[in-house]
C-alpha cells in the first residue's frame, strides 16, 4: 500500500480510537443540533432553516480544533520528527491528513443531517449541491486549521488560537447568531469572516437556490481555503523545538489575512453586506406598483412551488367552525422570546413609544394593506408584527397589539377570524414583506421564511383572542 493510503487509513483508525476526538467530533455537533431544535421548536419544519449554521459549527469545530490539536500533539510527541526521517515527501503526509480530516467532517455532517431528518426535517432541496458546498466549507476551514496548527507551539495554544477565531465567527460572524439580529457594524465585520459564507452556501443548498445562488460564497470559501492550505504548507514544522515566532516562514500568515480582507473588501464593493441582497433564501425581489402613494416598498415573493401543484385553496368564506376549532393552538407564551405580545398595561416608553405611535398612525394609510385582496392585506399586517420579532427589536412586543387592534377595527370579527384561519392553513401562499422601514422601523429580517413563521404564530394568537381561547 502507498504511504498516502497507509497514513490516511491509520489517521482514521486513530481518530476513532480517541474518545475525546469522538466526543468533540460527533457528540458536540449533536448537542448543538438538539439546542437549535429546542430553541426553534416552533419552526414549521424542524431545523431546516438552521442546517447551514449547524453544519458550519460542526466543520468549524472539527477543522479549527480537531485537526490542529491532532497535528500539534503529534508534533509535540515527536511523531512528525520521526516521519521526517523517512523518504516520504511532506505533501503526501499532509494531504493524507487533510483527506482523513475531510472524511471525519463528512461523517459528522452526515450524522447531523441524519438525526435532523429523524426528528422531522425534510430532505435538503439540493442534496448534491449540499455535498459540494460542504466540501468547499471543509476546504476553507481545514486550511484555517492547518494555519492554526503551524502557528500554535502547543495544544493549549491551539485552544487559545482556535477560540480567538471560533467565538467571533459564532457571535458576530453570522454562524450561531443570525445576521439579521446583529447590529449593522457587525454585519459589515461578518463579511470578513468565512463563517458567513459557509452558512450562506450550505443554507442555499438546503432551502434555497443551490450552488447557483451562492457563487460568491463558494468563491470566498475557495479563496480563504487556498490561502490557508498554501500558508499551512509553507509554515509546516516537523519538530516541536522549532518555534513559530522563530521560524522564517511566519510571514506566510500575511496571505491568509490578505485573503480574508480581500473577500470582505469584495463583498463591500459588490454591496453584498446588506441582508436583503444576500440572504440565504432565494428571493425574487419585485417592486409592487404603489397605489396612491409615493413610496415603493420592496416585497419578497417566494418562487413558485415545483410540480405537482397543490389543489387550489378554498376561499376564506368557506372556512368552517371546525376548521377554526381544529387549529393547533400550542404556541409560545406571550412573554417568551418568540412571538411575544406585551400585556395591555405594559406601555412603551421614550423611543419605543415614538416608534409604536408611528406605526399605529402609519397603518391607517399604509398602502400595503389597502389592496383589493383582504387576505393579502391581513398577511401584510401580520408582517408588521412578525418582522420586528424576527429581528428581535425592542419594539417587537408592543406592535402585535397595535396590529391586532388595527385588524379588529378594520374587519368584522367573524370575517377576520376566517381570514386569519385561512392564512394559518395556507402559510406559504401570497407574499410577505421582510422590512417595514416605510412605517419607521428600520432593519430587514433577511429570511422571508422567518417572517412567515412568525406571522403564522401571531395569526394563531389573534384567532385565540377572537374566539375566546386566549386572554385578550
Amino acid at each position: 500500500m502507498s504511504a498516502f493510503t497507509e497514513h490516511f487509513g491509520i489517521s482514521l483508525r486513530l481518530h476513532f480510537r480517541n474518545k475525546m476526538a469522538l466526543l468533540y467530533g460527533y457528540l458536540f455537533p449533536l448537542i448543538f443540533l438538539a439546542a437549535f431544535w429546542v430553541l426553534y421548536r416552533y419552526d414549521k419544519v424542524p431545523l431546516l432553516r438552521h442546517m447551514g449554521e449547524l453544519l458550519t459549527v460542526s466543520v468549524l469545530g472539527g477543522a479549527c480544533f480537531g485537526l490542529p490539536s491532532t497535528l500539534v500533539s503529534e508534533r509535540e510527541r515527536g511523531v512528525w520528527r520521526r516521519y521526517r526521517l523517512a523518504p516520504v515527501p511532506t505533501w503526501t503526509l499532509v494531504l493524507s491528513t487533510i483527506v482523513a480530516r475531510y472524511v471525519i467532517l463528512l461523517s459528522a455532517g452526515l450524522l447531523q443531517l441524519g438525526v435532523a431528518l429523524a426528528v422531522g426535517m425534510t430532505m435538503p432541496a439540493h442534496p448534491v449541491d449540499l455535498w459540494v458546498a460542504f466540501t468547499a466549507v471543509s476546504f476553507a476551514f481545514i486550511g484555517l486549521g492547518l494555519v492554526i496548527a503551524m502557528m500554535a507551539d502547543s495544544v493549549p495554544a491551539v485552544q487559545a488560537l482556535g477560540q480567538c477565531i471560533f467565538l467571533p465567527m459564532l457571535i458576530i460572524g453570522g454562524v450561531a447568531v443570525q445576521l439579521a439580529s446583529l447590529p449593522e457594524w457587525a454585519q459589515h465585520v461578518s463579511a470578513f469572516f468565512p463563517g458567513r459564507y459557509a452558512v450562506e452556501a450550505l443554507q442555499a443548498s438546503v432551502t434555497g437556490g443551490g450552488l447557483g445562488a451562492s457563487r460568491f460564497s463558494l468563491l470566498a470559501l475557495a479563496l480563504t481555503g487556498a490561502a490557508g492550505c498554501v500558508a499551512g504548507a509553507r509554515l509546516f514544522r516537523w519538530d516541536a523545538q522549532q518555534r513559530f515566532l522563530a521560524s522564517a516562514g511566519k510571514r506566510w500568515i500575511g496571505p491568509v489575512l490578505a485573503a480574508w480582507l480581500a473577500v470582505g473588501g469584495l463583498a463591500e464593493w459588490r454591496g453584498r453586506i446588506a441582508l436583503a441582497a444576500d440572504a440565504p433564501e432565494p428571493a425574487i425581489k419585485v417592486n409592487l406598483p404603489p397605489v396612491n402613494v409615493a413610496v415603493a416598498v420592496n416585497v419578497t415573493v417566494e418562487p413558485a412551488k415545483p410540480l405537482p401543484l397543490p389543489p387550489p385553496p378554498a376561499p376564506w368564506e368557506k372556512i368552517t367552525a371546525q376548521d377554526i376549532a381544529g387549529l393547533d393552538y400550542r404556541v409560545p407564551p406571550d412573554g417568551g422570546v418568540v412571538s411575544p405580545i406585551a400585556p395591555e398595561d405594559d406601555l412603551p416608553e421614550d423611543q419605543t413609544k415614538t416608534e409604536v405611535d408611528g406605526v399605529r398612525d402609519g397603518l391607517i394609510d399604509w398602502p400595503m394593506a389597502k389592496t383589493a385582496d383582504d387576505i393579502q392585506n391581513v398577511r401584510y399586517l401580520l408582517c408588521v408584527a412578525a418582522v420586528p420579532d424576527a429581528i428581535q427589536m425592542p419594539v417587537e412586543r408592543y406592535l402585535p397589539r397595535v396590529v391586532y387592534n388595527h385588524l379588529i377595527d378594520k374587519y368584522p370579527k367573524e370575517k377576520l377570524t376566517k381570514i386569519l384561519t385561512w392564512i394559518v392553513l395556507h402559510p406559504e401562499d401570497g407574499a410577505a414583506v421582510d422590512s417595514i422601514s416605510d412605517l419607521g422601523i428600520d432593519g430587514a429580517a433577511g429570511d422571508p421564511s422567518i417572517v412567515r413563521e412568525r406571522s403564522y404564530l401571531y395569526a394563531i394568537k389573534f384567532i385565540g383572542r377572537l374566539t375566546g381561547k386566549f386572554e385578550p
Partner: protein
Amino acid sequence: MPAKVIVRDLSKRYGGVEAVCGVSFEIEQGEIFGLLGPNGAGKTTTLECLVGLREADAGMLEVCGLDARKEPREVKQRIGVALQSTALQDKITPREALKLFASFYRERADPAVLLERFALTEKADARFDTLSGGQRQRLALALAFVNNPELVLLDEPTTGLDPQARRELHAEILQMKRDGHTVLLSTHYLDEAEQLCDRIAIIDHGRVIATGAPRELIARSSGSQSVTLVTKPAVMAEQLVRLPGVKELRCDGTTVRFRTEHPTETLTALAALLAERRVELVELVVKKASLEDVFVGLTKSTAEGEKS
C-alpha cells in the same frame, strides 16, 4: 571496500553557538562506530545532520556512497534511524506502526519478521501507551529496520532504560553487526561504547578530540595506573606523597588512592614504607587506565585548553 560514512569538516551553528565545528570521521562497512561525548558535546547534532533532520552549514557528508546534503531523500531510503526517544501516537500498535513506516520505503521488510526478531510478537496488537520503556525502544529499533537498511544510526538508544532492558538492547546491537549491518551509535555511556564499539570518536565542545578503537585509545593514553589501598592504621599523606611516581593523591581515613606511571617502583617503595612503619596492608588494587580515564583526561585537557 569504500567507507560507509565519510564526514569531513562538518560545521553547524545555532545562532551564535557553534554546536559542531570541523568534525571529521569515517565508518567502515560492517563496523559499530561510536560517537562518545558528554551531554551537549555535539553528538546528536552530528547525527541529525547525517540523517537529514538538520542542514549542515559546511562540510562533506557521504552516506552509502551518496552526497547526503544533495540527495537526502535517497540517503533516507538506505538508512535506518532510532532516535533518542521515539514516541508514536498513544493508540497505534507495533504492527500498525511497522506497516505504516514500511509503506514509506521502496524496500520493505516483513512486519511479522521484525516483530519476531525484536521480541514484540506478543505485543504486536497492544497500544503504544501500554508498552514498557524497553518495549518502546525495541519498537524504535524495529522501525529502523523496516527498509532493510545498509546503515543503522542509533542516537543514545539506551538512555533511560533499566539495566535489564539495556542488556537486551546491547545484544540486539551486537546482532546487527553479526548480520553485516554498519552501525553508528551515539552514547554518553563509556561502558556501552567500550563493550559495543569497534571504533569510537570522542567528541567534546563540537570537536572530535580522539578517534580509534577503545583499546588503542587506552593504550595511547598516558599509561598511568590507579592504585587503591586500605591500611590499618592510616598512613600519613606526607609520607605517601614522597614515594616515587605518586600523583593525584587522595586520602580518606584508612583508604588511599593515587595514580602512578611507574607502578613497580612506586609499589616497592610503598611496601618498604609500610613495613618500616609496621602498618598492616588490608587491601591493595592496581588498575590499568580505563576508557573513562581516557575520556576524563581528554575532555579535561580540552576544557583547560579552551580556558587558557
